[in-house]
């Protein structure tokens, strides 16, 4: 059990970070042409929906939105055993698209590896970019985010928790110290 | 050479004896039964024990000649002795079939030389058990067969069964019927009923047994010959025999410990040690068999001791061979009936002694002065656990492994000789 919890990002802080990321995505990709957002279940899919909303507010256009479940692409199946399989739901062809993968917390990078493998089983995007709300370090793979809400230095025994409300809006980010 | 069995509760239903007495054995014969007897030789303190005429099992498969990898006359009779039996009647489905004097001579000779208990070979009704022509029943009788049967198979032809009864009658040979109507058995591998439905196994309906029992009982009535029905397992079969006896038909029957102990529920898990023929039946059949034992409709408890090699049981249920070993578990299973109040100890001893002896007319089953001294001393309170690997039989195919038992033979005496003494 965690001994102490500290809120490192509150509701307003998350809103500002997501708004900034939306702007950065549009700036880097020069608009919404061929753009697609794919959230990683579960957490990243809710944030991707938030980003879609903000991009629509800024550009007045809906960008394609999908979700990917990486359970079947995990590299720890033989040690972790079964986990519930979520649904991968990408209702548009990703061939030739600029796909922004969205996740809540970037840690070792293994989840992102799995998500990229999942995307390549579905099609061949033009490029893949990575947006995360929190980057907590400790990478085990050569993976680097393109858009970061906040960098949070952590130790390995700490946990980062992103809280969502019932309407799947992000409320706050807490750090749990042992 | 004498043995004095002192202070046991002597039960000999043939003579109506049931009291604490001493039994003196001299020169291989029962010399005297009385109080306060003295003897020079071996003394057995039987205080608290039950002393009975040697138990008789008229339905065992010794598998010798031909299937010695399952059992032979030595191991089979050792298993019998360990179970308290002093006489067994062995079935003719040997290889070659026990359908001729030479095979009977072999069995009788080997049993006399190497066997632990008395062996009465049962000859086949038909040559080679083929159900086509009668065996030489006269010569079989002369060689030592008190009875004939095609056990394992029914005599399919009603006509041939009629002739067998007519032919056997003047020789004083009992015809033993393995009663099943094969066309109703079909491909069945267990009792037809709810458990078979659940397990998806083909069923053998009780009517397959009842129909053939009815036919053979009527043929016995028609011919006036002596008929014995092997291993009755259904409510209907018991009732048919009960009514026939009331009409004066010369019919007797036997039931096995597994048929009065287990139901077809034992098959669950596809337990091949619960596969036998007749199959384990439903609870109402078990109750009827118990009632038949209690009221004397069923004359004898017989084990249908059917040793099989592990390779013949360790297979898919539907191809596993039928039968279980029974000699070493029969007595404690039967004693449970007394504990359950089904029948008196006296009646139980009768089903193991005078009942079977009369069914196939062998001069055993009593402690009358001057008869060969076959005696079983039973400790009714001895508690033990069935460990299949420790059975004396060569085969270990029992569904009772791990069962806690109460009661065991502690001395088995055949012809005045102790052939089995239970350790501890």
């Amino acid at each position, binding site marked *: 059990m965690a001994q102490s919890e500290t809120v490192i990002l509150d509701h307003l802080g998350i809103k500002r970070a997501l708004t900034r990321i939306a702007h950065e995505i549009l700036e880097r990709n020069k608009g919404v042409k061929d753009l697609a957002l794919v959230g990683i279940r579960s957490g990243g899919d809710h944030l991707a929906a938030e980003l879609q909303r903000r991009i629509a507010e800024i550009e007045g256009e809906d960008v394609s939105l999908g979700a990917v479940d990486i359970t079947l692409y995990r590299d720890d199946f033989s040690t972790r055993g079964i986990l519930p399989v979520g649904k991968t739901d990408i209702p548009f062809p990703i061939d030739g698209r600029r796909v922004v993968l969205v996740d809540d917390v970037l840690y070792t990078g293994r989840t992102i590896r799995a998500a990229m493998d999942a995307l390549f089983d579905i099609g061949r995007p033009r490029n893949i970019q990575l947006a995360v709300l929190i980057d907590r370090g400790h990478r085990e793979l050569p993976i680097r985010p393109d858009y970061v809400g906040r960098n949070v230095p952590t130790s390995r025994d700490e946990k980062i928790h992103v809280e969502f409300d019932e309407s799947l809006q992000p409320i706050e980010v807490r750090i749990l110290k042992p | 050479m004498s043995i004095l069995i002192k202070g046991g509760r002597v039960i000999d239903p043939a003579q109506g004896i049931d009291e604490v007495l001493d039994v003196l054995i001299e020169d291989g014969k029962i010399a005297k039964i009385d109080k306060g007897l003295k003897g020079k030789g071996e003394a057995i303190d039987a205080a608290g024990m039950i002393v009975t005429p040697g138990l008789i099992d008229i339905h065992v498969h010794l598998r010798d000649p031909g299937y010695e990898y399952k059992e032979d006359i030595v191991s089979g009779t050792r298993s019998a002795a360990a179970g308290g039996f002093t006489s067994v009647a062995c079935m003719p489905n040997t290889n070659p079939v026990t359908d001729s004097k030479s095979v009977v001579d072999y069995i009788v000779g080997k049993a006399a030389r190497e066997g632990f208990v008395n062996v009465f070979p049962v000859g086949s009704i038909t040559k080679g058990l083929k159900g086509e022509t009668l065996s030489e029943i006269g010569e079989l009788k002369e060689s030592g067969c008190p009875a004939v049967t095609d056990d394992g198979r029914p005599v399919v032809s009603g006509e041939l069964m009629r002739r067998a009864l007519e032919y056997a009658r003047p020789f004083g040979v009992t015809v033993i019927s393995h009663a099943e109507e094969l066309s109703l058995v079909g491909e069945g591998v267990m009792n037809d*009923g709810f458990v078979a439905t659940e397990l998806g196994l083909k069923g053998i309906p009780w009517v397959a047994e009842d129909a053939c029992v009815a036919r053979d009982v009527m043929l016995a009535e028609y011919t006036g010959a002596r008929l014995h029905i092997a291993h009755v397992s259904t409510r209907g079969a018991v009732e048919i025999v009960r009514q026939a006896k009331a009409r004066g038909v010369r019919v007797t029957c036997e039931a096995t410990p597994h048929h009065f102990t287990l139901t077809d529920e034992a098959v669950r898990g596809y337990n091949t040690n619960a596969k036998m023929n007749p199959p384990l039946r439903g609870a109402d059949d078990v109750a009827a068999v118990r009632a038949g034992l209690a009221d004397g409709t069923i004359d004898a408890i017989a084990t249908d001791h059917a040793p099989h090699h592990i390779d013949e049981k360790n297979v898919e249920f539907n191809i596993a061979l039928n039968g279980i070993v029974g000699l070493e578990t029969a007595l404690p299973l039967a004693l449970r009936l007394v504990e359950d109040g089904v029948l008196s100890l006296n009646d139980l001893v009768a089903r193991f002694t005078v009942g079977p002896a009369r069914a196939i007319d062998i001069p055993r089953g009593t402690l009358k002065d001057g008869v060969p001294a076959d005696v079983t001393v039973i400790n009714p309170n001895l508690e033990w656990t069935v460990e299949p690997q420790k059975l004396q039989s060569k085969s270990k195919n029992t569904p009772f492994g791990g069962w806690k038992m109460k009661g065991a033979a502690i001395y088995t005496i055949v012809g005045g000789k102790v052939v089995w003494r239970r350790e501890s």
Partner: protein
Amino acid sequence: MVFRHKHILGIEHLSRDDIQTILDTAENFREINSREIKKVPTLRGKTIINLFYEASTRTRTSFEIAGKRLSADTINISASGSSVSKGETLEDTARNLEAMHPDIIVMRHAASGAPHYLAERIGCSVINAGDGAHEHPSQALLDLLTIRQHKKTFEGLTVAIVGDIAHSRVARSNLYALTRMGAKVRLAGPGTMIPPGIERLGAEVYTDIREAIRDADVVMMLRIQLERQGKTLLPTLREYARFYGLNQENLKLAKGDAIVMHPGPMNRGVEISSYVADGNQNVILEQVENGVAVRMALLYLVAGGESKE
């Protein structure tokens, strides 16, 4: 997630939650089957042996595709093409297979209980792909998935299963699964094909197909196999079709939105008329499609074993 089954030997051993888990997992596997690249790496390095002692095209193929789409190595052994026809005992076959270290054996056998026998003697997981007249769990689960897609829930549904109930493993597994999920099951067939005591498993038994399918939400027809079931059970297929076959007429007795199912292969004109088999109420090909997803779910759940977190 809790799924504590090393083997899938029958629906009898599965709880309501287990069935729910399998169906939910299968539902999410369906998406993979509609992709261009129909493969995920989950069971990479796992070896699955399809050990089929009975001819079966559809179940074997379905399991094979399911294994391959999960990236497992799947090997097919059929009775005719292996040592089993040379009289090797099942135990020896099991030992030999075990020496090759498979992770899962999918077994079809004519003897009821054969997969149980195997499971008791082998270290790897065993999935029953149909044993004698006993169980066919993956078929029942794909049937349930299909029913759930159309009816959303099982509570309060009436499912009529018509045919040779006595010799049908599909009927038994469906009976267990449907009653466990809260559906009402009616069984119907000729008197020779109703096994004793089946009502004790929670079914209502009918001998008139019209009564059985009246107001039913689902009508499931079973395959009649005269050659396997012997000549004594039925006079003719013609008469069977007349009294126990599903046709446009008697189907009208079922609810208007009733779905028609068949585990296949169908005997058109016997247990099911072509009009019904091809009609708009049939979901027969959906069953086949769901079969792959359900079998993927079973392989996934069995291969992973208990979640360690």
